[in-house]
């Protein structure tokens, strides 16, 4: 049977599949269909030549929820909050994105104020009821919701993370009057304290549930119509997958469903090739995405904001994006400095050399002038080098550099912007770049990867063999996963361990139940415990691993020591002057799936050398070989300056870089000779 991974991107729908009996692998790439993306998914499977009734698992990554949110393209939901907190999701934390911009505006709230209602109920910080929920008042709101024909409602009350009874009662009353409405409550969505994040995440869930319900239902129908009878599984932001029924109910967990596949591929490489720590980078036309895989696992954040002050606090792969890609435009700012991006020519009008009307030089134009791009894109189209040169010359005149120096400068600045994004996720979380290998995905990624790595002092770069369909490949390499959380606030030293053990047991039971629904037997389930911890009196937590057994007083010194270590690593300081405290307990359950086969490449046929080109590096032209990557045998070595071309991607090796093909066909580039040694 086939295990199929599908990633639906803005332009292309990518497929990677492997057969768990024959170990056969296939890929395909088709245009994404719009507005309904389901036909594109069907097309990709047809294109790959796979019979629908031979698919056992279809793993799917989608940006549908994120797109709907960003465009506010969903039917109006309603919200019910505690009196006095109607505007929590609109006021946010009352700060602004730009320190000095007097004209800035804030993003629109996820739910309109006119559909946000309040009730005079109250629970205190210990979970005790101060003012009971009045049924009459609640019923009146349920009637208003019906009058407006609203089908999706978020209920979020103050201190409900401690006691969700009022939220549950409110939900029941709304359902009484509106039996077909979706009603989601904050204490079940994410029972953690600090109202802004919890309320907003609940609002996000209410807004996207109807959208995803429709999307997934269409997709299921389309697949079923073709004879598909396997399991449809959806990629979550956390880097795990889940059954489609859970995904319909929890679209707030799908915000990074698209990029998560690429990170999963990085995690897969990490295990297969024994690189414990990988920086995953992906360069597209307009943006550069970066995230970290550490000890084989993607690094997780709980601070993700969809837009300014619109946080989604579910555990999510820490994927950072900046506006730096092939379409990034070169310009001179008001102080006379050369810049690259974040403005992008996108796919329309695109780079100047595409001849589609673009007039401002882009990163792609710069690469063309430097000789790093093949002028016919492998015969796909003819690039207009003269037009690119003319536009670059205009830019060059403004800063007094030659045309070629300006092109080179744009690349270096673009790469530095990418390096800063890498630093943001790496160094700002206390990680040392030299412990990592940089993995480069996406067609344009490996044109810049060596320079980004150089700027970060990272000695090695890897370009995986499936870089062209990375997210689809990664989808098939994922495990089923759920992250559950419960609030427990106490200094570690005085924690009621019986209560802690009971909470962990309860979370684990729930996690195991969720995986059982997806058909995972107990013996394939791995359970990991964590706690959000901080020093007594601090505000921000650091995730700390917790031993997965019944805790006794004897475990406390080890837990405290682990917390000090984690704090030191995140923030550079720690001290046993302060008592560590628990804030919430977390359980991650994973259901092991079968990984795609590690196929060793045989000795390839054909002449690997395709030709030679002049390429600009380090202020001079260099005669550089061009290799056909698919013809390189395992253990083959190529030395920079050179280009290695693949069907969907291309690697640029600067002088002194040396690349070796590993036994799985991945290109591993060593740039240590170009690094500063003593940093």
């Amino acid at each position, binding site marked *: 049977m086939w295990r199929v991974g599908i990633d639906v991107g803005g332009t292309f729908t990518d497929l990677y599949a492997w057969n768990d009996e024959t170990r056969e692998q296939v890929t395909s790439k088709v245009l994404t269909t719009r507005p309904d993306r389901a036909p594109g998914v069907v097309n990709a499977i047809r294109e790959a030549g796979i019979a629908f009734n031979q698919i056992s698992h279809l793993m799917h990554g989608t940006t549908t929820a994120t797109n709907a949110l960003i465009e506010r393209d969903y039917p109006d939901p309603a919200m019910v909050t505690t*009196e*006095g*907190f*109607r*505007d929590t999701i*609109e*006021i946010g*934390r*009352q*700060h*602004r994105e*730009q*320190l*000095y911009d*007097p*004209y800035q*505006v*804030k993003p629109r709230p996820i739910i309109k*104020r*006119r559909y946000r209602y309040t009730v005079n109920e109250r629970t205190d*910080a210990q979970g005790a009821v*101060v003012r009971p929920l009045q049924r009459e008042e609640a019923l009146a709101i349920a009637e208003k919701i019906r009058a407006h024909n609203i089908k999706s409602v978020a209920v979020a009350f*103050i*201190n409900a*993370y401690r006691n969700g009874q009022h939220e549950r009662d409110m939900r029941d009353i709304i359902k009484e009057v509106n039996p077909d409405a979706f009603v989601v409550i904050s204490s079940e969505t994410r029972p953690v*304290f*600090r*109202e*802004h994040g919890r309320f907003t995440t609940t609002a996000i869930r209410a807004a996207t549930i109807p959208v995803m319900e429709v999307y997934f239902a269409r997709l299921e129908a389309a697949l079923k119509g073709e004879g598909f009878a396997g399991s449809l599984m959806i990629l979550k932001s956390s880097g795990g997958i889940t059954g489609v029924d859970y995904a319909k109910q929890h679209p707030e967990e799908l915000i990074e469903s698209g990029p998560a596949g690429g990170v999963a591929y990085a995690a897969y490489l990490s295990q297969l090739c024994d690189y414990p720590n990988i920086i995953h980078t992906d360069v597209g036309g307009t943006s550069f995405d970066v995230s970290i895989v550490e000890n084989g696992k993607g690094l997780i954040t709980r601070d993700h904001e969809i837009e300014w002050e619109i946080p989604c606090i579910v555990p999510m792969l820490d994927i950072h994006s900046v506006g730096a890609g092939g379409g990034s435009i070169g310009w001179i*700012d*008001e*102080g*006379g*400095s*050369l810049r690259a991006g974040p403005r992008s020519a996108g796919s329309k009008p695109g780079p100047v050399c595409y001849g589609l009307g673009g007039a401002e030089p882009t990163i792609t134009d710069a690469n063309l002038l430097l000789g790093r791009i093949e002028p016919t894109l492998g015969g796909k189209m003819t690039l207009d080098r003269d037009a690119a040169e003319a536009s670059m010359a205009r830019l060059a005149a403004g*800063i007094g*550099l030659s045309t070629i120096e300006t092109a080179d*400068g744009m690349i*270096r*600045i673009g790469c530095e*912007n990418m390096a*800063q994004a890498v630093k*943001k996720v790496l160094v*700002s979380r206390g990680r040392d770049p030299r412990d990592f290998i940089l993995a480069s995905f996406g067609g344009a990624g490996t044109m810049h990867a060596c320079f980004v790595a150089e*700027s970060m*002092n990272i000695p090695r770069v890897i370009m995986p063999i499936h870089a062209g369909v990375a997210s689809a490949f990664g989808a098939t390499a994922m495990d089923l996963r759920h992250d559950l959380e419960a609030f427990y606030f106490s200094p570690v030293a005085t924690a009621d361990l019986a209560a802690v053990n009971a909470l962990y047991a309860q979370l684990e039971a729930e996690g195991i139940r969720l995986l059982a629904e997806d058909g995972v037997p107990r013996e394939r389930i791995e359970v990991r415990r964590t706690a959000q911890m901080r*020093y007594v*009196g*601090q*505000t*921000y937590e650091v995730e700390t691993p917790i031993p997965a057994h019944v805790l006794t007083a004897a475990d406390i010194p080890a837990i405290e020591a682990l917390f000090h270590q984690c*704090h030191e690593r*995140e*923030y*550079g*300081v720690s001290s046993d*002057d*302060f008592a560590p405290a628990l804030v919430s307990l977390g359980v991650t359950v994973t259901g092991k799936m079968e990984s795609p086969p590690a196929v060793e490449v045989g000795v390839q046929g054909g002449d690997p050398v395709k030709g030679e080109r002049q390429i600009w590096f380090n202020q001079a032209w260099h005669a550089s070989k061009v290799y056909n990557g698919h013809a390189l045998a395992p253990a083959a070595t190529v030395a920079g300056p050179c280009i290695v071309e693949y069907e969907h991607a291309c690697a640029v090796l600067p002088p002194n870089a040396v690349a070796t093909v590993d036994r799985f066909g991945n290109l591993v580039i060593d740039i240590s000779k170009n690094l*500063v040694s*003593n940093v």
Partner: protein
Amino acid sequence: MDKKVVVDAAVVDQTKLDPVTFEVLRSIFEYASDRMSTVLQRASFSPILADMVDFSNAIYDYDCQLLSQAANCPIHLAAMKFSAEAIIRRYGLPNIFEGDVLCVNDPYQGGTHINDMTFMSPIFFEGELLGFAVSRGHWMDLGGGAAGGQAFAGTHIAGEGLRLPPVKVYERGVVRQEIVDILMNNTRTPHFVKGDLQAHVGCLRAAILEMQRAAAKYGVVTLKAAMKQLQEYTERIVRKSISEIPDGVYEGEDYADTDGFSDKPIQIKVKLIVEGSGITVDFSGTDSVVKGAINSPYANTASASLYSLQFFLAPHAPQNQGMFNPITLVIPENSWLNAKWPAPTIGCTTLTSAKITSAIWQALAKAIPERVTGSTSADCNWFVSSVVATNGATDVFSDLPAGGWGATPFSDGMNVTEDPLGNCMNMPAETAELLFPIAYEAFELRQDSGGPGRYRGGLGAIFKVRYLAEGALSMETARTLEGSPGVAGGQHSDVQRQIKIHTDGHREVIGGLDAEGNWKNPLLCAHPFSHGETFMFESTGGGGYGRPWERDPQAVLEDVLDEYVSVTAARERYGVVIDAAAMRIDESATRALRQQLAA
């Protein structure tokens, strides 16, 4: 890579950077100060740092000129330099060593108010001084006559808490316990001292590490040259922007409602003299030093003036010394904007700086009317309260419920957003209730509080906190006599007001105007609250832009649907008649009413 340490300034001056290295280093400097803020926020203990983000971090070059600053509180921006200079003056450069952490909070030595503690470490690389990392944070309490130093009944700086001259807290990496002990002995919140100190030290270390990495990679000479060239770069942007403002003298004014003692407002008068690519900000004619605690020391007035201009000169330029060079300040010696010992200053960073901004923006409105916005709520509304629980445990909590921003020539103003002087965050209700014996009852938008206009001023807030213990609350605020001014025909917003809700539900105005038009002093000093009583604050919105009866009626209807604006205000202020039952615009009644308003 030049391994050799070079101190010759001429070599640095002559080093020409290629545009690309320049751009790369510029982003590294920016990143380094951002990183400082991440560490300080995440590792600090007191809510005013961790939750409310009342701090700023910056890197200064080897001449103690600002190189980069993380985006937090503009009011700290220029003042930190005066603190750093005071430290260097006190010790002399040869006596400042690698591993030192120095500290000062003296308002008359580059400080602003006592609670702003400034920490500084030198940045060395292979023995060469690259610059200084400086971190300024608002500490919750450093003693004084009322919690948080907000002793608005006092008339002497000694009543506002511990005034530290420049001291070393760490020397060559070793903590000086006696200084930590002094800090611990002079606060209502000793439990925050060690943790906040550790966070500041971690934040300084983060900057040092980043700068050393850059020095190793690019060399000391290149790094130093980039520092100077970055400042010149910003200066070019700012000068270019100033030269686009027509030459002339533009006047503006604003006022504080009271200093806590006076029954008449305290005036700020400002003249902006624009000449070519420079601006002189002249405060001649401003009132003399006052008895109450809103006096502003030179460093604070300088900071407020500089950040106020920054909004309209070069909002996106890298923040460094180059912003300040084109600007000359004239602050009369005896005025309340140039406070000397022993004038009390606790309200200067919040209340006074906001009024300076408003005065400067109103002057700018005469120079560049097509670009200036309606006034913001122009206050920080910072309050501090002690709480004594039934078991006798004392603690201090604080918050700063914001008002709205002025409408712009292109859009409505932002609702409930921290004043330009800072970029602090509010206290989450659920955090506050876990830590203190209080209950947050409301923080929501206040209907009709935005100044009407073609574009509406952003709304202010209604804030309520109930005491579950005995408390004493101090607070600075103004705009209690009239709201935020509009521009270009835009109207004032509503006034601010402090209220005590008694346990029987009775609402007593304790600051500002009550229903009968009686006004009470809004500088609250240790105002007592008993168990069960609620402190309520109504903040104001921003001023409007353009005539309200020129606002698109559909936009007014949308505002009514969202209850930003009431049906009554839609009719009376905007001339839009809305049928409240059907929620539809009565077109003909609206036309008639608007003609009447325009006449």
